[in-house]
């Protein structure tokens, strides 16, 4: 039963991703090729990569921290990446004087420093998962305060650019950003997929997994560094996009079960489809204008999370 359901979900997601570039306002005959190849297809690729990274990272984080609220956002990875990228944006006056790689490196460094703090807490042996989440919240607050301080110091144009970036958007022209993100996203996804067996054992508890042969510190470190790489790149190129990492693993668990053989790959696939779907909505819902996809995911994610919460309570 689950196998058929998983197959149906996979086929549906792939069809949705393939169809997404053709959804939207009618294309003028002369501009059709440009709109498709330079705007919509790169944008769908970008959305699919970002959604896949956020979805699978959320699923891995929820397992390594044994906490359904653990995501790149709650353990500080996104905030660290945001601070890193924002520092470059502000110091280089809106990103005009530095290239994409510098932005990505800054976001990765920020995400890694934030994750290292979580790793430090996680590696202390007796740290509970609550300790790690609290450390993540502390990092998030500190990074947010620093980011706001940076924006306050910048001129009005730079601040405006930083605010627009922080809303999260998949708007791209051509494949330049896609080619920067794709290898980093692939490394992140492959690193996390390589941990499927260990994450499956970790689902029964960190101590239980240790006694079964899992090197818990190493698995946590690989997942956090892999997550920092992927999330750092996503944040640098698209701005922070909330809720995908939180909501997608819950959707997959409810629909297809909690087995990590299914959970990890399908969190990537459903995350990709969900973010591309949100982006299609963001660019078609308001004719002539565009809603930042980060705003839309936050607007849709919050009630979706509440529905999940109430359903879970009802089932208990």
């Amino acid at each position, binding site marked *: 039963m689950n196998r058929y359901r998983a197959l149906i979900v996979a086929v549906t997601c792939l069809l949705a991703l393939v169809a997404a570039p053709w959804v939207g306002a009618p294309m003028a005959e002369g501009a059709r090729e440009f709109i498709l190849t330079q705007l919509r297809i790169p944008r769908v690729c970008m959305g699919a990569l970002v959604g896949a990274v956020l979805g699978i990272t959320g699923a891995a984080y929820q397992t390594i921290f044994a906490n*359904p609220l653990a995501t790149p956002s709650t353990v500080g990875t996104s905030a660290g990446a945001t601070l890193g990228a924002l520092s470059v944006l502000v110091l280089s006056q809106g990103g005009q004087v530095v290239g994409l790689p510098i932005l990505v490196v800054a976001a990765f460094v920020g995400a890694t420093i934030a994750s290292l703090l979580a790793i430090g807490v996680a590696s202390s042996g007796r740290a509970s998962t609550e300790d790690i989440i609290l450390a993540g919240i502390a990092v998030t607050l500190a990074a947010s305060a620093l980011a706001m301080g940076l924006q306050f110091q910048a001129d009005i144009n730079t601040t405006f650019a930083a605010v627009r970036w922080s809303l999260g958007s998949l708007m791209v022209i051509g494949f330049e950003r896609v080619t920067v993100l794709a290898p980093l996203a692939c490394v992140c996804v492959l690193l996390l997929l390589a941990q499927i067996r260990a994450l499956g*054992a970790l*689902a029964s508890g960190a101590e239980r997994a240790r*006694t*079964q042969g899992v*090197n818990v510190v190493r698995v946590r470190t690989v997942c956090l560094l892999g997550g920092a790489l992927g999330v750092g790149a996503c944040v640098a190129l698209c701005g922070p996009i909330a809720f995908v990492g939180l909501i997608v693993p819950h959707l997959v668990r409810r629909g297809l079960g909690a*087995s990590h053989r299914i959970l990890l790959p399908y969190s990537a696939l459903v995350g990709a489809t969900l973010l591309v779907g949100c982006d299609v909505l963001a660019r078609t819902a308001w004719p002539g204008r565009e809603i930042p996809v980060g705003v839309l995911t936050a607007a849709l994610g919050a009630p979706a999370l509440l529905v999940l919460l109430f359903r879970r309570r009802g089932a208990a």
Partner: protein
Amino acid sequence: MTAPIVLTDIELAGRERARLRVPALRLEGSRMIALVGPNGSGKTSMLRSILGLESKLSGTITCGELDLLEASPKRRAASVGWLPQHEARAEGVGVNDFLRGACFRHAASREEIDRWIVTRLCAMDLESLARATLNQVSGGELQRLGLAALMLQDASWWLCDEPANHLDPKQQLLTYQALGASWCEGQAIVCVTHDVNLLWHAVSKDRWRDVRIIGMDRGEVVVDESLLSPRLAEGLSEIYGLEVARTTEADRPRFTMMLPTGGA
């Protein structure tokens, strides 16, 4: 022949005093070992120390040639396996996934592991649970699944922490009989228990003398006797602070804790 576990100069730091202090202790697999003692006496700490789960530990613990405190998790998992007091019921985790975790140390294909799991579930009459999640099984079934996980892990030693905790009397009996049967087949076992009398039922009469009782108090080993030792009742009395009488019912010895008479 299972390699013995040897603890040397073990000290586990606690807040006010050492939670565990064992100058020298040798555990042989040829004897079924039961750790007894009041709450906080160091039984669980000893198991956790052997399993490498304690960080503030000094001294050495070896299993044959292997230094358990320095070994990699996989090598340690080949030597010692754990049946905790409570299995965590992670939300949505299926029985199969739980048992796959127990096979982590084995370098086997996915198909092979799935085959082992089906065989183990059938052997323990648990095949009806194959598609269930841990939230859907009863306490007794969960305990048996824990035993199935231990068997799949296939470690030289099983360290069982109150395996019959919170089970009804019949399930307690079945759990100890299952452990006793495994020990008789050559599996080395250390088992924390609060009820020494269950051990009379774990193994047949001719093996009672091979059941070793290690009594602990305040982190130290204070009793080390055979189940048949005439000094055991006195030792139990010392560690529990209650008079313990050894009686015989239907040809089976029994220890009875003599609680103080009169109400509160």
